[in-house]
Protein backbone atom coordinates (compact mmCIF):
# COMPACT_ATOMS: atom_id res chain seq x y z
CA UNK A 1 0.00 0.00 0.00
CA UNK A 2 1.37 3.38 -0.97
CA UNK A 3 2.04 5.89 1.75
CA UNK A 4 2.18 8.77 -0.74
CA UNK A 5 -1.30 10.16 0.00
CA UNK A 6 -0.59 10.20 3.73
CA UNK A 7 2.77 11.91 3.16
CA UNK A 8 1.07 14.43 0.92
CA UNK A 9 -1.45 15.20 3.63
CA UNK A 10 1.33 15.59 6.22
CA UNK A 11 3.20 17.98 3.91
CA UNK A 12 -0.01 19.90 3.35
CA UNK A 13 -0.55 20.21 7.10
CA UNK A 14 3.06 21.24 7.66
CA UNK A 15 2.78 23.72 4.84
CA UNK A 16 -0.28 25.40 6.30
CA UNK A 17 1.32 25.40 9.74
CA UNK A 18 4.44 27.03 8.30
CA UNK A 19 2.27 29.58 6.59
CA UNK A 20 0.44 30.35 9.86
CA UNK A 21 3.71 30.64 11.72
CA UNK A 22 5.05 32.97 9.07
CA UNK A 23 1.96 35.16 9.30
CA UNK A 24 1.97 35.20 13.07
CA UNK A 25 5.65 35.33 13.72
CA UNK A 26 6.37 37.64 16.63
CA UNK A 27 8.89 40.44 16.19
CA UNK A 28 10.57 42.22 19.09
CA UNK A 29 9.29 45.78 18.74
CA UNK A 30 9.13 48.39 21.49
CA UNK A 31 6.24 50.80 20.92
CA UNK A 32 4.43 52.98 23.44
CA UNK A 33 0.98 51.52 24.00
CA UNK A 34 -2.23 52.75 25.58
CA UNK A 35 -4.98 50.28 26.32
CA UNK A 36 -8.69 50.32 27.06
CA UNK A 37 -10.23 47.35 28.80
CA UNK A 38 -13.78 47.07 27.54
CA UNK A 39 -16.85 45.56 29.12
CA UNK A 40 -20.34 45.58 27.66
CA UNK A 41 -19.27 48.23 25.18
CA UNK A 42 -17.95 50.56 27.89
CA UNK A 43 -14.41 51.42 28.91
CA UNK A 44 -13.74 49.72 32.23
CA UNK A 45 -10.11 50.60 32.64
CA UNK A 46 -7.40 52.65 30.96
CA UNK A 47 -3.68 52.05 31.12
CA UNK A 48 -0.40 52.26 29.30
CA UNK A 49 2.77 50.28 28.73
CA UNK A 50 5.30 49.25 26.14
CA UNK A 51 5.16 46.44 23.62
CA UNK A 52 7.58 43.52 23.90
CA UNK A 53 6.62 41.88 20.63
CA UNK A 54 4.04 42.32 17.92
CA UNK A 55 2.66 40.01 15.24
CA UNK A 56 -0.33 39.91 12.94
CA UNK A 57 -1.94 37.58 15.46
CA UNK A 58 -1.48 39.73 18.54
CA UNK A 59 0.86 41.60 20.83
CA UNK A 60 2.59 41.22 24.14
CA UNK A 61 3.20 44.28 26.27
CA UNK A 62 4.47 45.30 29.68
CA UNK A 63 2.23 47.21 32.01
CA UNK A 64 2.05 47.88 35.72
CA UNK A 65 -1.47 46.43 35.79
CA UNK A 66 -2.73 42.90 35.73
CA UNK A 67 -5.71 42.38 33.44
CA UNK A 68 -8.49 39.78 33.51
CA UNK A 69 -8.14 36.80 31.19
CA UNK A 70 -10.48 36.84 28.21
CA UNK A 71 -11.12 40.54 28.77
CA UNK A 72 -11.86 42.55 25.63
CA UNK A 73 -9.13 45.05 25.02
CA UNK A 74 -8.19 47.77 22.57
CA UNK A 75 -4.51 48.63 22.18
CA UNK A 76 -3.33 51.85 20.58
CA UNK A 77 0.35 51.63 19.68
CA UNK A 78 2.09 54.83 18.71
CA UNK A 79 4.02 54.66 15.46
CA UNK A 80 7.26 56.59 16.04
CA UNK A 81 6.84 58.94 13.05
CA UNK A 82 4.40 61.64 12.10
CA UNK A 83 3.00 61.54 8.60
CA UNK A 84 4.68 64.34 6.69
CA UNK A 85 5.84 65.63 10.05
CA UNK A 86 2.37 66.62 11.26
CA UNK A 87 -0.02 63.73 11.67
CA UNK A 88 0.42 61.02 14.32
CA UNK A 89 -0.09 57.46 13.21
CA UNK A 90 -1.26 54.67 15.50
CA UNK A 91 -1.68 50.97 15.19
CA UNK A 92 -5.01 50.01 16.72
CA UNK A 93 -5.49 46.38 17.72
CA UNK A 94 -8.65 44.88 19.22
CA UNK A 95 -8.75 41.47 20.81
CA UNK A 96 -8.78 39.46 24.01
CA UNK A 97 -6.37 39.12 26.88
CA UNK A 98 -5.01 35.58 26.65
CA UNK A 99 -2.28 35.87 29.27
CA UNK A 100 -1.70 38.25 32.13
CA UNK A 101 1.39 37.17 33.92
CA UNK A 102 2.67 39.72 36.38
CA UNK A 103 3.51 42.72 34.24
CA UNK A 104 3.33 40.94 30.90
CA UNK A 105 0.06 40.92 29.05
CA UNK A 106 -0.58 38.94 25.88
CA UNK A 107 -3.39 39.88 23.54
CA UNK A 108 -4.81 37.79 20.73
CA UNK A 109 -5.86 40.12 17.95
CA UNK A 110 -9.22 39.94 16.27
CA UNK A 111 -8.67 43.05 14.23
CA UNK A 112 -5.90 45.54 13.59
CA UNK A 113 -5.43 48.66 11.52
CA UNK A 114 -3.28 51.74 11.19
CA UNK A 115 -5.02 54.98 12.01
CA UNK A 116 -4.19 58.60 11.62
CA UNK A 117 -4.84 60.19 14.99
CA UNK A 118 -5.32 63.86 14.27
CA UNK A 119 -3.11 66.71 13.25
CA UNK A 120 -0.56 68.26 15.57
CA UNK A 121 0.21 71.26 13.44
CA UNK A 122 -3.38 72.31 13.04
CA UNK A 123 -4.63 73.50 9.67
CA UNK A 124 -1.42 72.26 8.07
CA UNK A 125 -3.31 69.56 6.22
CA UNK A 126 -6.96 68.96 5.47
CA UNK A 127 -7.58 65.95 7.72
CA UNK A 128 -10.05 65.13 10.45
CA UNK A 129 -9.51 65.96 14.10
CA UNK A 130 -10.69 62.60 15.31
CA UNK A 131 -9.02 59.28 14.71
CA UNK A 132 -9.91 57.50 11.52
CA UNK A 133 -8.95 54.47 9.61
CA UNK A 134 -6.57 55.05 6.77
CA UNK A 135 -8.71 52.95 4.47
CA UNK A 136 -11.61 54.82 2.96
Amino acid at each position, binding site marked *: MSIAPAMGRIEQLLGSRRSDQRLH*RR*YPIALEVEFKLLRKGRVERLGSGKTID*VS*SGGACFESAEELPLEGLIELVMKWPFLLEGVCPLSLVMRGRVVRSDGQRIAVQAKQHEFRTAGVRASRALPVDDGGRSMV*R
Partner: protein
Amino acid sequence: MRKPSGPPSVLIVDEDLGFIGWLGELFNEAGYRALPALSCRQAISLIKRFKLDVDVLAVNEELPGVPGMIGMLRRPRRPLKIVVIRDHRGDGIVSIPAHATLERPSAWEPISRPVWLKKVLGVLKQAESRAAG
Protein backbone atom coordinates in the same frame (compact mmCIF):
# COMPACT_ATOMS: atom_id res chain seq x y z
CA MET B 1 4.50 66.30 -4.50
CA ARG B 2 5.64 67.88 -1.29
CA LYS B 3 9.14 69.32 -1.26
CA PRO B 4 11.46 66.82 0.41
CA SER B 5 12.76 67.80 3.82
CA GLY B 6 14.30 65.94 6.74
CA PRO B 7 15.36 62.33 6.56
CA PRO B 8 14.56 60.21 3.51
CA SER B 9 11.35 58.24 3.73
CA VAL B 10 10.54 54.59 3.19
CA LEU B 11 7.01 53.34 2.62
CA ILE B 12 6.65 49.75 3.87
CA VAL B 13 3.70 47.87 2.41
CA ASP B 14 3.12 44.36 3.69
CA GLU B 15 0.31 42.33 5.22
CA ASP B 16 2.48 41.11 8.09
CA LEU B 17 2.06 43.63 10.87
CA GLY B 18 4.99 42.35 12.93
CA PHE B 19 7.34 42.49 9.97
CA ILE B 20 6.26 46.04 9.14
CA GLY B 21 7.02 47.11 12.72
CA TRP B 22 10.35 45.29 12.73
CA LEU B 23 11.42 46.81 9.39
CA GLY B 24 10.16 50.20 10.54
CA GLU B 25 12.48 50.15 13.54
CA LEU B 26 15.42 49.00 11.42
CA PHE B 27 14.86 51.63 8.71
CA ASN B 28 14.58 54.18 11.50
CA GLU B 29 17.98 53.09 12.83
CA ALA B 30 19.32 53.35 9.29
CA GLY B 31 18.26 57.02 9.25
CA TYR B 32 14.98 56.67 7.36
CA ARG B 33 11.47 57.81 8.25
CA ALA B 34 9.36 54.67 7.97
CA LEU B 35 5.70 54.84 6.94
CA PRO B 36 3.58 51.69 7.20
CA ALA B 37 0.66 50.31 5.22
CA LEU B 38 -1.00 46.91 5.39
CA SER B 39 -2.13 46.95 1.76
CA CYS B 40 -1.58 48.87 -1.47
CA ARG B 41 -5.04 50.34 -1.04
CA GLN B 42 -4.03 51.79 2.34
CA ALA B 43 -0.75 53.02 0.88
CA ILE B 44 -2.50 54.75 -2.02
CA SER B 45 -4.90 56.39 0.44
CA LEU B 46 -1.91 57.73 2.41
CA ILE B 47 -0.09 58.89 -0.73
CA LYS B 48 -3.13 60.81 -1.94
CA ARG B 49 -4.13 62.25 1.40
CA PHE B 50 -0.70 63.38 2.55
CA LYS B 51 0.93 63.86 -0.86
CA LEU B 52 3.72 61.59 0.32
CA ASP B 53 7.11 61.99 -1.26
CA VAL B 54 8.66 58.55 -0.89
CA ASP B 55 12.33 57.77 -1.51
CA VAL B 56 12.18 54.01 -0.99
CA LEU B 57 9.25 51.64 -1.44
CA ALA B 58 9.57 48.32 0.40
CA VAL B 59 6.69 46.20 -0.83
CA ASN B 60 5.46 42.65 -0.75
CA GLU B 61 5.22 41.87 -4.46
CA GLU B 62 2.34 39.45 -3.90
CA LEU B 63 -0.07 42.14 -2.76
CA PRO B 64 -2.73 43.24 -5.22
CA GLY B 65 -2.29 46.70 -6.71
CA VAL B 66 1.52 46.95 -6.60
CA PRO B 67 2.09 48.23 -10.19
CA GLY B 68 -0.52 51.00 -9.81
CA MET B 69 0.98 52.10 -6.50
CA ILE B 70 4.48 52.22 -8.01
CA GLY B 71 3.11 54.35 -10.84
CA MET B 72 1.73 56.84 -8.31
CA LEU B 73 5.04 57.08 -6.46
CA ARG B 74 7.35 57.62 -9.42
CA ARG B 75 8.87 61.08 -9.67
CA PRO B 76 10.55 62.78 -12.61
CA ARG B 77 13.88 63.77 -11.07
CA ARG B 78 14.66 61.45 -8.16
CA PRO B 79 14.31 57.78 -8.94
CA LEU B 80 12.10 55.72 -6.67
CA LYS B 81 14.07 52.88 -5.13
CA ILE B 82 12.06 49.69 -4.97
CA VAL B 83 12.82 46.93 -2.48
CA VAL B 84 10.78 43.79 -2.90
CA ILE B 85 9.80 41.89 0.25
CA ARG B 86 9.74 38.19 -0.48
CA ASP B 87 8.87 35.05 1.34
CA HIS B 88 11.90 32.95 2.26
CA ARG B 89 10.38 30.10 0.23
CA GLY B 90 10.12 32.27 -2.89
CA ASP B 91 11.09 30.90 -6.29
CA GLY B 92 13.62 33.63 -7.10
CA ILE B 93 11.48 35.24 -9.80
CA VAL B 94 10.58 38.83 -9.05
CA SER B 95 7.51 40.04 -10.91
CA ILE B 96 8.00 43.81 -10.54
CA PRO B 97 10.98 46.03 -11.43
CA ALA B 98 13.02 45.90 -8.22
CA HIS B 99 16.35 47.41 -7.23
CA ALA B 100 16.86 45.03 -4.30
CA THR B 101 15.10 42.21 -2.53
CA LEU B 102 14.62 41.55 1.16
CA GLU B 103 13.74 38.08 2.30
CA ARG B 104 11.33 37.64 5.16
CA PRO B 105 12.76 35.41 7.88
CA SER B 106 11.49 31.87 8.12
CA ALA B 107 9.42 30.90 11.13
CA TRP B 108 12.39 29.19 12.77
CA GLU B 109 15.15 31.62 11.86
CA PRO B 110 16.38 33.51 14.90
CA ILE B 111 16.28 37.24 14.26
CA SER B 112 18.95 39.49 15.65
CA ARG B 113 18.81 43.25 15.44
CA PRO B 114 22.49 43.81 14.47
CA VAL B 115 22.31 41.16 11.74
CA TRP B 116 19.09 42.55 10.34
CA LEU B 117 20.30 46.13 10.53
CA LYS B 118 23.31 45.12 8.45
CA LYS B 119 20.98 43.38 6.02
CA VAL B 120 18.74 46.45 5.71
CA LEU B 121 21.72 48.76 5.21
CA GLY B 122 23.03 46.43 2.49
CA VAL B 123 19.66 46.38 0.75
CA LEU B 124 19.42 50.18 0.87
CA LYS B 125 22.92 50.54 -0.56
CA GLN B 126 22.15 48.08 -3.35
CA ALA B 127 18.87 49.80 -4.19
CA GLU B 128 20.60 53.19 -4.23
CA SER B 129 23.35 52.08 -6.58
CA ARG B 130 21.02 50.19 -8.94
CA ALA B 131 18.53 53.05 -9.09
CA ALA B 132 21.34 55.50 -9.87
CA GLY B 133 22.78 53.26 -12.58
